[in-house]
């Protein structure tokens, strides 16, 4: 019961920056004494998960040899990309220096992992180094498979009515160039999502709602025809949320095209082709938002860490969904996008996954079993227009898990939820990176 209370209390603190969180600010739990160890820990990826874990491990372990691998000098605040692609923030809003977030005492190697040998317990880097490990945390994120969309390439983004906000800050900014032109001139807007697992399944909806709202405010009602192409027969993985989104679409006049997966683009003729159960369907567009299929990086799939019988075209790491520990190699954990668990490719998931891996990893170093459990919690401040959002929180079982039941209703469009997304989230995210939240 105590644990339940603590979980609820801390989630409230996380989400409740505007709801009297100052009282919680005074409470700091006692820090457990650091564990003495000479364990070699390698973390692949210095994104949200890797960075947060590194900062927490440094506090928990004394003497550990922690190495973090990431080829990118730039750290991306990915939840901000939706705002950049709607002209609400500059692309620089999402960018910071990877090294600035890492604690001293951790070695950063600015190379990618090129090979993982889970039997010999080594990681080979793209620069030719070989790192031996006692524990490995795999958190390299995922790969956007743009080539899977025939006729599409990233250099098209920003012109000819094509957007692709997932591709990074510059592309999100270019997406806004194309989207704002569409908002001014009117026409047909097609908003897609892939059929694979994906980062933040709410983001395709957010972009649709935002551009719809901005278009109506810019050129007036009746000048735009907005279509949302869903990959299956629902609009969101959680049924009750899907139903709410269906109602909102009806209210806004957005047409849902079910089971329409973007297959190819003819940028010259401005025609998009979708795979549907009835065969290919062509649709003309003035604005097309592309989100490509998403997969685990090749190094994961080639090293035998992926599920053999699930997501075989995507290659997510085979982990226990409650502990995020590899099912065949107990000294390997996966975090964030690459983890083969249902749901959970968001920063909010990472926030709840990292302490679980920390607990099991530190316990393993101590020679015992960890007790922390990840229940699939994730949250999505689902923007429904500029100025309003729904604060949707849920778990593996598709249950809504509102942090403030009765105060911030999960399926209600609220200004306070917008404030959380627009202003509170980045600060909380940054605190998470530092291991402080």
């Amino acid at each position: 019961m105590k644990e339940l209370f603590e979980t609820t209390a801390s989630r409230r603190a996380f989400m409740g920056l505007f709801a009297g969180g100052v009282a919680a600010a005074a409470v700091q739990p006692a820090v457990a004494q650091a564990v003495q160890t000479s364990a070699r820990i390698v973390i692949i990826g210095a994104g949200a998960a890797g960075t947060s874990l590194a900062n927490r491990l440094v506090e928990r372990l004394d003497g550990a040899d922690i190495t973090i691998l990431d080829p990118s000098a730039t750290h991306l605040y990915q939840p901000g990309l939706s705002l950049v692609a709607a002209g609400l923030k500059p692309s620089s809003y999402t960018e910071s220096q990877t090294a600035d977030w890492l604690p001293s005492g951790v070695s950063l190697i600015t190379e990618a992992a090129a090979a993982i040998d889970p039997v010999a317990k080594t990681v080979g880097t793209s620069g030719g180094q070989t790192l031996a490990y006692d524990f490995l945390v795999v958190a390299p994120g995922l790969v956007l498979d743009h080539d899977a969309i025939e006729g599409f390439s990233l250099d098209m983004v920003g012109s000819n009515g094509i957007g692709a906000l997932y591709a990074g800050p510059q592309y999100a900014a270019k997406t806004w160039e194309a989207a704002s032109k569409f908002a001014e001139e009117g026409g047909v807007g097609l908003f897609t999502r892939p059929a694979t697992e994906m980062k933040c399944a709410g983001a395709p909806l957010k972009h649709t709602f935002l551009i719809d709202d901005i278009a109506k405010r810019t050129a007036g009602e009746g000048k735009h025809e907005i279509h949302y192409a869903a990959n299956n027969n629902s609009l969101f993985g959680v049924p009750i949320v899907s139903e709410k989104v269906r109602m909102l679409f009806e209210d806004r006049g957005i047409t849902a095209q079910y089971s329409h997966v973007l297959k190819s683009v003819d940028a010259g003729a401005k025609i998009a082709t979708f795979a549907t159960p009835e065969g290919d369907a062509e649709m003309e567009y003035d604005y097309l938002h592309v989100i490509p299929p998403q997969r685990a990086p090749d190094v994961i799939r080639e090293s035998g860490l992926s599920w053999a019988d699930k997501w075989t075209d995507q290659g997510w790491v085979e982990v226990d969904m409650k502990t995020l520990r590899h099912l065949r190699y107990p000294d390997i954990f996966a975090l964030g996008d690459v983890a083969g668990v249902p749901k959970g490719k968001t920063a909010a998931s990472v926030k709840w996954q990292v302490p679980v891996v920390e607990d099991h990893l530190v316990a393993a170093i101590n020679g015992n079993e960890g007790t922390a459990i990840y229940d699939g919690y994730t949250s999505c401040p689902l923007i429904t227009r500029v100025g309003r959002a729904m604060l949707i929180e849920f778990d593996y079982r598709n249950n809504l898990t509102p942090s403030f039941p009765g105060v911030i209703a999960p399926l209600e469009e609220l200004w306070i939820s917008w404030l959380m997304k627009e202003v509170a989230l980045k600060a909380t995210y940054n605190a998470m990176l530092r291991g402080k939240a």
Partner: protein
Amino acid sequence: MEQLTFGTLIAVFEEIFGGVLFWLMVVAAVLVTVAYLYVLVRDRSVSMRKFLLAQLSMPIGAVAAVVFVQVMTHSQLRDIGGPVDLIVVLGIAVVGAIGMAILVYTAQSLLRGKSE
């Protein structure tokens, strides 16, 4: 340490207003508060006449605070969607009103001096 720390709260406000503007506002708030305490101690009493004007300025402070926060967060009044939003707006208005009252009272006291 899954707790909201004071540092996080500061970071949230820096995020809303931008680092420079936020700290300028903090400095301004501290200066006004110190000046307010100074005139209270100096005058040894609250001047009702100055207090009246201060009270009259409160609605202006309330509206100004709400408009300021909305501009900073790309929001409008039409975004108020439920009771909790109304509470937030009223909270911002109250803070703005009190801040304005203190500011106006202090400004009068400093400019006009102790005599009425």
